[in-house]
């Protein structure tokens, strides 16, 4: 960490002797400097401008704080350190970001190291901040082609230094890491040119060696680092075009994997504090969210072995003990009564009835219009054929493999916090706010994440842990039981959606009218602009709910894609068309989508014969800048449907690490299949009923289909995400396949309840 503070101290905001800074625009900087020991450091930074009130609280330094996005450090020992402002939760972000930087730098991959930036304002994902906080800001022209605003809506809900919204590669990577690498390269070349008195244009760089072919002069990065720091900053570093990529686009082995096969990777739950004895906390929060602890009887628990403290925190109960198991055992012996409220009467049926009522009230043209072309209602009234349908999806828990946890130590006005968070900056600031101290008094240490999927962008675990640690005064590791993790989630909202489609006499889809209950983002999730439909109207109605909700892998796309692509298949069936043929028709003006669709159809052998009671379903979705189509193959011969194969074709623009991207597709498919088949959080008397993997089941290896993934690099200038886009098409491909296999049309997820 010493090394890290050194780097922070060298940001362009605090120029020191021997440093220069260059402006790209009023608020965009490349900064460079020399570190003690002769290391060159180059950073790309953007000033945050004037943040709106809600985000100001999250920005530790307030207005005008410099948010450094990307850093590279080149030491005398030739080691290139990429400072990565994103957390690693298995998506391969660290490796892919380092690949982008190292490629622009023409570094030797064997000498590249990765350092995760700490949860500090300097490292906030300013790309998010930039467009959100300072919409008028001009992007450096060199990076102009990479700008894509589609992902920003998600960012609005979250703190700044987040890893979510499939953002790291296309945001930080494209705008920050590549620019930092290219700038450092230009400065190393300039240093060599000065030293050798040769024109820079004749100097080349390859695998960490700067060379002049004609004279045979060569120097390693480390030899030039010090001189490079004194060179003028490049005004606009030149980025490579794909034909010159050496590392980008290559399936490079992920650097975080070796530690994940021998038990040495440190997750939040594994944190130890050197020289300190840890105590362990188990907690129980009220089953109905928002309730308070009204009465607590801890007499039996007090006497149990290892118990150190029993805390009634008002909104939860905690037992602190010498070991976690002891804490949990004692907690189980505490009887608690909770405050009552109207929420105690809510159950799943009432929630969906409320959605139905909201949709009824909105009627044929009420609600908030999200998109409109032509006159859908007018055409529908006179349509030769009408198709209508209503769909429902349940609440879902994240169920990350590692239960929520956090370690905290509060003493002397200071606080240290350890956790695996998708939002290290948000975590630090949440700790500070909870304790009523300034953020610079909080030392936040991020670890590997045992799954995030959106859950770890919330900070409730952090807040709980620092409150407990404040009460104890000694360091405490808080671990949630799986039951608590399942019942105190920020759920993927349930939703209902209604559709009306009108076909003309020739069977052509002429009108599309959709209204759905809505709670979240991104706003474009229900839109179907890539489909060529002359009249369309897409609306939402607000439908409040008492459960906490949060981003869940692919956010609203997880619901909307299933609604949309199920309905497209229903239209095909009504029109007597093949589902693939109808989609081809609708995508006639969207060549990238069409290419993806056609490729997946070819992979799956669409149209070829299948045994009886087998079926194929197809679906396509666009999310987080990527286009993904999937075909699921289903076997209905047994009592329960079995998914035997899933074919997936994705166009993310350009896959920086194709094997990593493929793994993300595989992961999204299994996560989506688990949810579509089994996922359902139910509410009774206001409380979540499911508690652990026995009643919130997960797909297992014996049910896992063979997955085939192909990637199309459709547009290297527009990068799409990887973590989320594999999920949305899976559920509709599955339910469409069940229908094709002779099963029912499923309009209410999960699938399993229709085969019980």
């Amino acid at each position: 960490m010493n090394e890290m503070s050194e780097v922070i101290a060298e940001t362009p905001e605090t120029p020191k002797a021997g440093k220069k800074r260059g402006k790209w625009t009023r608020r965009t900087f490349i900064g460079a400097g020399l570190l003690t020991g002769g290391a060159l450091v180059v950073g790309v930074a953007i000033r945050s401008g004037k943040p709106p009130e809600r985000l100001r609280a999250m920005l530790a330094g307030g207005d005008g704080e410099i948010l450094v996005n990307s850093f590279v450090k080149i030491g005398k020992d030739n080691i290139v350190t990429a400072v990565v402002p994103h957390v690693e939760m298995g998506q391969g972000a660290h490796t892919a970001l380092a690949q982008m930087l190292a490629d622009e730098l023409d570094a030797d991959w064997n000498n590249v190291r990765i350092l995760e930036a700490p949860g500090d304002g300097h490292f906030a994902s300013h790309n998010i901040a930039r467009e959100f906080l300072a919409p008028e800001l001009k992007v450096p022209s060199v990076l102009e082609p990479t700008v894509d605003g589609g992902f920003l809506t998600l960012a609005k809900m979250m703190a700044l230094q987040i890893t979510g919204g499939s953002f790291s590669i296309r945001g930080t990577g494209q705008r920050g890491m590549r620019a930092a690498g290219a700038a450092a390269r230009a400065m190393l070349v300039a240093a060599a040119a000065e030293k050798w008195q040769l024109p820079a244009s004749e100097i080349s760089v390859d695998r960490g060696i700067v060379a002049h072919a004609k004279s045979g002069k060569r120097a390693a990065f480390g030899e030039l680092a010090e001189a490079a720091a004194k060179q003028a900053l490049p005004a606009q570093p030149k980025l490579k075009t794909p034909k010159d990529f050496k590392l980008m686009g290559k399936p490079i082995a992920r650097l975080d994997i070796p530690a994940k096969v021998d038990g040495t990777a440190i997750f939040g739950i594994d944190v130890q504090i050197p020289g300190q004895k840890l105590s362990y906390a188990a907690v129980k929060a009220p089953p109905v969210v928002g309730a308070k602890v009204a009465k607590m009887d801890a007499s039996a628990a007090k006497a149990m072995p290892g118990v150190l403290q029993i805390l009634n925190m008002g909104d939860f109960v905690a037992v602190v003990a010498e070991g976690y198991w002891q804490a949990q055992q004692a907690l189980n012996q505490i009887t608690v009564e909770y405050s009552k409220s109207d929420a105690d009467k809510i159950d799943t049926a009432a929630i969906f009835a409320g959605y139905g009522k909201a949709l009824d009230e909105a009627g044929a043209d009420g609600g908030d219009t999200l998109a409109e072309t032509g006159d859908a209602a007018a055409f529908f009234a006179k349509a030769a054929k009408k198709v209508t349908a209503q769909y429902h999806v349940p609440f879902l828990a994240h169920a990350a493999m590692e239960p929520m946890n956090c370690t905290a130590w509060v003493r002397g006005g200071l606080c240290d916090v350890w956790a695996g968070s998708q939002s290290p900056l948000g975590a630090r600031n949440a700790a500070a706010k909870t304790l009523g101290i300034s953020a610079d008094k909080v030392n936040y240490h991020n670890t590997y994440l045992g799954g995030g999927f959106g859950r770890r962008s919330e900070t409730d675990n952090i807040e709980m842990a620092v409150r407990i640690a404040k009460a104890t005064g000694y360091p405490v590791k808080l671990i949630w039981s799986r039951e608590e993790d399942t019942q105190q989630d920020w759920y993927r909202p349930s939703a209902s959606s209604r559709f009306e489609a009108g076909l003309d006499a020739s069977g052509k889809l002429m009108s599309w009218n959709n209204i759905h209950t809505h709670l979240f983002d991104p706003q474009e999730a229900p839109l179907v602009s890539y489909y060529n439909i002359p009249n369309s109207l897409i609306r939402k109605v607000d439908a409040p709910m008492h459960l906490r909700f949060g981003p869940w892998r692919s956010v609203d796309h997880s619901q909307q894609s299933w609604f949309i692509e199920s309905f497209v298949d229903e239209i095909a069936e009504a029109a007597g068309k093949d589902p693939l043929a109808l989609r081809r028709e609708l995508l006639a003006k969207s060549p990238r989508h069409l290419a993806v669709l056609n490729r997946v159809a070819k992979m799956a052998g669409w149209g070829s014969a299948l045994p009886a009671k087998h079926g194929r379903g197809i679906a396509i979705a666009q999310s987080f800048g990527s286009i993904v189509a999937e075909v699921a193959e289903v076997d209905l011969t047994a009592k329960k449907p079995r998914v035997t194969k899933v074919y997936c074709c994705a166009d993310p623009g350009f896959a920086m690490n194709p094997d990593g991207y493929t793994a993300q597709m595989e992961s999204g498919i299994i996560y989506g299949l688990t949810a579509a088949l089994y996922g359902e959080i139910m509410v009774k008397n206001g409380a979540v009923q499911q508690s652990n993997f026995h009643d919130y089941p997960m797909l297992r290896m014996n049910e896992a289909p063979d997955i085939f993934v192909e990637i199309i690099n459709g547009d290297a200038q527009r990068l799409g995400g990887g973590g989320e886009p594999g999920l949305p098409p899976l559920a509709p491909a599955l339910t469409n396949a069940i229908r094709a296999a002779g099963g029912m049309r499923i309009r209410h997820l999960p699938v399993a309840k229709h085969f019980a």
Partner: protein
Amino acid sequence: MKLTINGKMQEITADPATPILWALREQLGLNGTKFGCGIAQCGACTVHLDGRPVRSCSTPLSQAEGKSIVTIEGIASGDGALNRLQQAWISEQVPQCGYCQSGQIMSAAALLADNPRPSDEQINIAMAGNICRCGMYGRIRKAIKVAAGIDSERQQEAAT
């Protein structure tokens, strides 16, 4: 209480009802074995007890008295070189978040010790107790075959 852990005799003072998982993690600092559910449903806590895979979250210390436990930290060969499963896990780029993988490798190791050339069906049965929320089942299956020296292509050819 005396038991052998990763080949070393260890003395633990704890309530004999304590699940092995928590003794490993909190008393011996062996953090590679993970907590996922606490009710023998996910396999994240899998260790070997006298060579058999057990869910350490639901196995009390009392059952391990005088026996031998092997954890992910003890699975590499004596000279510290990675076990063939660990090597295959790297070559097939199996882990995503990695949290489930200690348990997966321990289950796979027990399988191969028992059955050096498992069929797909046998792999599925042996691994069905281990959840991977990152969904790396295909890669785990492939890595087990690579470690076992079963070439999946060749197997398929033989079948056709």
